[in-house]
């Protein structure tokens, strides 16, 4: 029986995009433009509902489809196994909600926006579904090129420079990815990931080392790990909010997805775990520290994306079942609450027009945005009933033999609490406390509130009932990647963790007090932080890659 499921998931956005592009010359009036929106929504929501229907079959067997009917290791195969099922579900949910949000938010080129959004979604599904290395490269390139175009749709002048830097660094990463594939193909003669996992371990260590450097260089740029993260802040802060929600929620995760797919392929390189732990901690702490200096809300969120990515990399670094389970769970949680935060930021910018949190003074005129923002802030900080705390406690549980890393992660928790209480204070509470008069409620339009409420709802569900999600989705996913089924006991609702959470919040608010009192001093520092231009970013990247290559050559 040929199972067609994966093909239907990838073809739906493609067909919807081509229908939209084919209809666009005939649809000139405003009413008919609505048709394009509804086609796009159908094209996005069908895969989501279809994936939910697919869950029973995925939990039993891996769905596999060989393109064109050729033999397994040589044809391009699309698979849905528990591991990429989690990524597919979360990306279809976030892209659907982000598109609903963008219907009102995007002011320019409305018709073409849905076309590019659909092609980006097709690229995302193409990467998650396919198992052939070169195929992952092609669909990843489709997703990245459409995101360049979507970033230039940002209303600011800066979006052009950001898009250009993003384009150049993105294409260098793709070239590294290609070189990695080329070396692998030259030595093993195979492109299918499962087929390669048997062949790579037989290669001698030096070739594995070179392939690791190339593939890691590409993955590190895409997942915005520290030495290569500079493009992310400009690109995500100048893109339209719906696009930056998808970029921060999904596109950055593609880098980690490829990281997991590729590096569980049997690379025997010593020192990988320590190296990744250091990278994760530097990302987590650096992102938070830089975020403290920012006043632009979207740049703040972009820096906190970098720090949360560091969190996930720390989780994945140990390659132990608990660590990878925590990392996967945090990938889903981060996609949910970061998407929610960017949508809230979009609603705030839509209503006040500026990105500067000092000029927002929304007070309580936007109740829905305020509540959803508080939920998201609590869940990113890792407070008990919300979803951040579950995955953070699992990751901390996996760091039993690295106490120092555990301590640094606590510091990032405090810093994250400070960042988001800073936004809360400047955008909302400052005006609510000072002028008591009741301003009229200028809440964002309904089509913006709906995605925010749904995402906040998911924030609570994912956190309050962790066992449902763990046993049904996360643990089968980890066992399909790492192998070896473990049961994870979560000590969430014990008084100890609740006490720890509120202690951290206390420290966070203390740090906030210092940040507010030193506001002018921070402004002076921020002006002097040298903003590296494009050339220095490429120099940093090549220097980091040389370091990795020589470090690993020395170790092996």
């Amino acid at each position: 029986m040929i199972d067609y499921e994966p093909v239907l998931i990838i073809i739906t956005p493609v067909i919807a995009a081509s229908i939209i592009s084919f209809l666009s010359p005939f649809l000139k009036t405003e009413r008919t433009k609505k048709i394009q929106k509804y086609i796009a929504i159908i094209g996005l929501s069908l895969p989501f509902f279809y994936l939910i229907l697919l869950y029973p079959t995925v939990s039993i067997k891996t769905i596999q489809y060989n393109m064109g009917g050729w033999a397994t290791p040589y044809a391009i195969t699309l698979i849905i196994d528990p591991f990429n099922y989690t990524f597919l579900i979360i990306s279809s949910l976030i892209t659907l909600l982000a598109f609903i949000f963008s219907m009102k938010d995007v002011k320019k080129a409305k018709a073409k926006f849905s076309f590019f959004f659909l092609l980006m979604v097709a690229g995302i599904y193409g990467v998650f579904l396919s198992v052939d290395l070169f195929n992952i490269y092609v669909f990843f390139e489709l997703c990245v090129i459409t995101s360049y175009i979507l970033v230039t749709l940002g209303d600011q002048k800066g979006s052009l420079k950001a898009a250009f830097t993003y384009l150049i660094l993105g294409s260098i990463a793709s070239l590294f990815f290609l070189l990695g594939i080329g070396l692998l193909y030259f030595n093993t003669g195979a492109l299918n990931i499962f087929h390669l996992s048997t062949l790579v371990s037989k290669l001698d260590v030096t070739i594995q080392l070179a392939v690791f450097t190339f593939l890691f260089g590409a993955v590190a740029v895409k997942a915005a790990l520290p030495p290569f993260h500079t493009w992310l802040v400009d690109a995500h802060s100048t893109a339209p909010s719906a696009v930056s929600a998808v970029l921060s929620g999904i596109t950055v995760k593609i880098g980690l997805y490829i990281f997991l797919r590729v590096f569980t392929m049997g690379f025997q390189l010593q020192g990988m775990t320590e190296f990744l732990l250091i990278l994760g901690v530097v990302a987590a702490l650096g992102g938070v520290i830089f975020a403290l200096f920012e006043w632009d809300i979207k740049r703040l969120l972009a820096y906190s994306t970098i720090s949360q990515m560091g969190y996930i990399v720390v989780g994945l670094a140990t390659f132990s079942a608990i660590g990878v389970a925590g990392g996967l769970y945090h990938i889903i949680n981060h996609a949910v609450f970061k998407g929610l935060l960017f949508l809230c930021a979009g609603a705030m910018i839509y209503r006040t027009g500026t990105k500067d949190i000092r000029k927002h003074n929304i007070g309580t005129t936007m109740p829905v945005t305020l509540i959803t923002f508080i939920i998201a802030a609590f869940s990113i900080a890792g407070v008990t009933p919300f979803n951040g705390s579950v995955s953070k406690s699992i990751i901390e549980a996996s760091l039993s033999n690295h106490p120092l890393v555990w301590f640094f992660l606590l510091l990032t928790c405090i810093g994250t609490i400070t960042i988001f209480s800073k936004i809360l204070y400047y955008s909302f509470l400052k005006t609510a406390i000072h002028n008591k008069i009741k301003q009229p409620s200028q809440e964002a339009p309904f089509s913006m509130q709906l995605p925010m409420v749904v995402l906040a709802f998911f924030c609570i569900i994912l956190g309050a009932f962790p066992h449902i999600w763990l046993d049904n989705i996360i643990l089968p996913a980890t066992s399909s990647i790492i192998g070896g089924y473990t049961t994870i006991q979560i000590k969430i609702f014990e008084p100890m963790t609740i006490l720890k959470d509120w202690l951290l919040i206390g420290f966070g608010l203390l740090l906030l007090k210092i940040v507010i009192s030193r506001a002018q001093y921070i402004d002076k520092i921020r002006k002097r932080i040298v903003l590296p231009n494009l050339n220095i970013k490429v120099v940093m990247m090549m220097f980091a890659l040389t370091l990795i290559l020589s470090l690993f050559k020395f170790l092996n």
Partner: protein
Amino acid sequence: MTKMKWFTYLLSAIILMTFGLIFFSTVFLSYPDVLHSEMSLYYLDHLSLTKAVNAVSAILLDFRAYDTLGEILVLFATISGVMLILRRET
């Protein structure tokens, strides 16, 4: 050349030199004398099925037609992207 420019040239040249040296010392690449990658052997054996003589276009349009589908989408996205970006102002 200004002092700053001369220094960055030297620095980046040194970085690339070390990268190239270490890379070439690790990986020694030499050509095989007969085709031994199992994927291409599989494609060449099944070439007669696709009624094509040119193996490259057979791979492009038959064995890996899904790649070409993705790549056509990339080309389509770029073309409409170029038209969108450049039309915005006139």
